[in-house]
């Protein structure tokens, strides 16, 4: 590995924090997306589709 000088620890730590933080965000977004999709599919299965909802709602 290339020598990052005396403060290599700080460099790795800051890259670690950024990559860690963004990875956590990405994982959460993917998880949340799957969870909502699952609930929606469950509604679909039970025949309650948006077409039947005549209310204006947020569409």
């Amino acid at each position, binding site marked *: 590995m290339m020598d990052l000088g005396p403060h290599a620890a700080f460099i790795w730590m800051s890259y670690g924090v950024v990559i860690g933080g963004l990875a956590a965000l990405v994982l959460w977004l993917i998880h949340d997306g799957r969870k909502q999709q699952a609930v929606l599919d469950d509604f679909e299965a039970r025949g309650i589709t948006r077409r039947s909802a*005549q*209310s*204006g*709602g*947020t569409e």
Partner: protein
Amino acid sequence: MRLFSENLTCVRGGREIFSGLSLDVQGGECLLLLGPNGAGKTSLLRMLAGYLKPASGTIRLEDGGEETGEDITVGEACHFVGHLNGVKSQFTVRENLAFWACFLSGEKNGESDAAVIEKALGAFALSSLCDIPAGYLSAGQKRRLCLARLLVAARPLWLLDEPTVSLDKKSQVLLANAVNAHVAGGGMAVAATHLELGIENAQTLELGGRGGRQ
């Protein structure tokens, strides 16, 4: 003076309360809104008063019949009595009414106000309680103080939401007299109520029939 609105639709919290509703109240008429809970009576009244924007449809208050084109916004021309009384418990009955007289009518609270306040107190049998802090009043008396506000500032349209809440028989008669006097004087009133208010020649509008919300 004429309150006119056509195919009003009200949507609250992603749910449609009522749609395609029209009403037309002329000067000197009283409209009673009947219907079960959740039928949208309160929503309609709040919409007429200007709190709620209708999802579709228009509300207009035409002044004096001839097309003046410029309609006064409903808010400035109406009294709205909701479920809450709008009574400050630290102030005495008279101070409460004095504030509303000055605030709602907008001009200096001069001599004329004192007379108006006395008349309003008399109309709702509050004269004996006028110097007692409102905090001591019973629920019925507070409701009467709230209704007395209708008389301290001249406004053509009265929007009353369950005005008879916590009123005893005698007070309901006082309310009916006040509304009759107001309507006889050319004013308009729209009231949502369950009890028979004893108001002569009142039209009724059934809400909650459509949409199957029981």
